[in-house]
């Protein structure tokens, strides 16, 4: 089962970690109260997340009143979030929410597998980006280009 539909708006490592916490809290609450599974989900998830989750259940014809089934999905979703590869993106300016969204859109438009982006700000790179992915660093900063140009002189 794919969980991509439940991952919208989760683009940064921080957002992923917060989402994972809410999923975990919902999973733990399922058997601790008298409320229905959907009520537990509504209480623990953000409104848009809840909306997406209930649509997902409907779409996959999953019984929303079965706490066991909901628990299984929540656990799988939690595990899915944790295994999404992380990409560290060091840029020279503080990213706005709109820019982070723009980058996420750009990545999905370019058929990039799901990623958790960890933004870091370092004005010393001057411009461009230093990308760390799967243990490798790719320096596409202006600072490194300038240094190379200066060394050649």
């Amino acid at each position: 089962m794919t969980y991509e539909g439940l991952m919208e708006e989760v683009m940064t490592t921080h957002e992923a970690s917060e989402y994972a916490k809410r999923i975990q809290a919902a999973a733990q609450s399922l058997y601790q109260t008298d409320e229905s599974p959907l009520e537990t989900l509504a209480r623990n998830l953000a409104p848009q997340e809840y909306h997406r989750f209930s649509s997902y259940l409907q779409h996959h014809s999953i019984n929303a009143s079965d706490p066991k089934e909901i628990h299984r999905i929540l656990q799988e979703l939690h595990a899915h979030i944790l295994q999404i590869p992380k990409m560290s993106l060091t840029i020279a300016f503080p990213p706005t929410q709109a820019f982070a969204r723009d980058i996420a859109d750009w990545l999905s438009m370019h058929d990039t597998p799901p990623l958790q982006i960890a933004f870091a700000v370092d004005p010393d790179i001057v411009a461009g980006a230093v990308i760390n992915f799967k243990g490798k660093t790719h320096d596409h900063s202006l600072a490194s280009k300038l240094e190379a140009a200066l060394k050649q002189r």
Partner: protein
Amino acid sequence: MAIFLILLLIALVAAAVWLLIFFANQTQNDKRLQEAENTVSQARQQASQMVDQAASQSHTIIKETQFFTGKAEDIIRKTLEEGLARIAAENTSRLDRVASHYEETTQQALASAEQAAKAHIQSFTAALQASTKETELHLEELVQQEYQKNKEELQSFKKTKMKEIEERLNREMPAIIKTIAGKAIPLSEHEQLVKSALSNIKESELL
């Protein structure tokens, strides 16, 4: 009467020598001040050329990185020129301070040479022993020594200062370019450059 005439003659000779030395000194002084001004003006010109060169080099470096679109490059070039012009102005004002310090020192040296000349005239008048020619030569030598000393001092100062400016430019140029370029790049260009970086990784199939 004869004694009076001799004394008058001595006074006239002393006055003539004093005038001769005074005018000779004055011409020398003017010449030395002129030379000092020329040296400082050359140094100022040299410093300004260095900074212009640095601005042009910085721009070439930015161009060589092939990082920017034409518009952003223009903005960066303009900001670079402004930043480096500030350094040029700083160095020019430093050189101006050097020039005024040198003029002051030269004036003091000239005053002391003149004092020495006066002392020699007095001794000449009093003793009536040394010949006028000998005194003139001695004075000329004194003035020449002082002049040479000042000239060497200024030349060495100029050399040191130029070296300092050149070293400073070389040392600070990378940082200047980085700071100026970083600030000059518009946010939209910054954002575009991040996407270009991601694009490069994507094309290399590393993502």
